[in-house]
């Protein structure tokens, strides 16, 4: 006679979840190492142009950013390209002060390695970029970087 084994205990067997925190911690550490803190909330739309001959920006702490592009809220600020420094819109004439402040914030030994990264939208006209470059020359920030996305072929 066939006999059926009777199931023991409750119906569902519990999965052992004691290793779950370890897995999550592993993920957490991965993200902590691989990412950097978000610097600003963008007020301008930026799609940087493509280029093949790009270099990596070394030492993020020695980079100050200038954002140029169309405002995100076009209904409020219009469609003309604007400059964003830190968390607010700025004029070209504000750049020397911004550079001076950025320089003050760094160690004296590091100041000459300070790079200015121009993050401009690809549809921007060169007029505003030229103005920015002239201001940077006047304030002595000669090392610049035209932010662009790396592509293997244009």
């Amino acid at each position, binding site marked *: 006679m066939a006999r059926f084994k009777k199931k023991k205990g409750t119906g569902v067997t519990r999965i052992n*979840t004691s290793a779950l*925190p370890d897995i999550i911690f592993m993920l957490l550490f991965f993200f*902590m190492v691989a*990412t950097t803190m978000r610097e600003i909330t963008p007020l301008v739309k930026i799609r940087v142009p493509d280029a093949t001959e790009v270099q990596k920006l070394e030492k993020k702490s020695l980079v100050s950013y200038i954002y140029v592009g169309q405002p995100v809220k076009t209904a409020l600020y219009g469609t003309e390209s604007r400059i964003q420094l830190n968390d607010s819109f700025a004029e070209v004439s504000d750049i020397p002060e911004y550079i001076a402040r950025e320089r003050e914030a760094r160690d004296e030994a590091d100041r000459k390695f300070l790079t200015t990264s121009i993050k401009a939208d*690809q549809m921007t006209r060169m007029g505003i970029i*030229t103005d920015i470059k*002239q201001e940077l*020359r*006047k304030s002595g920030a000669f090392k610049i970087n035209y932010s*662009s996305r790396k592509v293997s072929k244009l």
Partner: protein
Amino acid sequence: MRRSLQEINAGSMADIAFLLLIFFLVTTTMDVDTGIARRLPPPVESPDQEMDIRERNIFKVLVNSADRLLVEGKETDIRDLKDKTKLFFLNPYNDPDLPEKRTETIELLGEIDVSKGVVSLKNDRGTSYQMYIKVQNELTKAFREMRDEMSAMYFGVRFRQLVDEKKIRAIQKAIPIAISEAEPEDIGRKK
């Protein structure tokens, strides 16, 4: 009665870790910053202080407000810019219209003919940034390829793969990145 070593309830540990994980996911970005590095020239004191460079040593690149390219007086496609730049700087047949060379003794390389040529890049205020970057990219590519070729000839590896600081400096000295940007002019009147 003494209880033996009570365990801490670690059931909510996963929740805490999740919370932290989500916080980091939201506040950080992963993008790597890349770009074309350039060095701006120091400001000129007086406008009439002009550099004394002979006509044959200047490689004129003009970009107008309609993103059209004029290289050495001829309208050129962006795809031809790199080869034209290379030809200009290498000047393989010592053409009298192409730039002069001066012989320099460079450590590790010996006597090298260094081109006296300079790229003069001029753009309009109405030129699009995209086009400007494209031009800068092509110019950079021309210099990079020239450096690669020289590096391969002398050291057997490409310039980017060189490790020795001395070798890098020698190549940089033999092929300097000579891009000069003209003082801005406003012709197209377009914002």
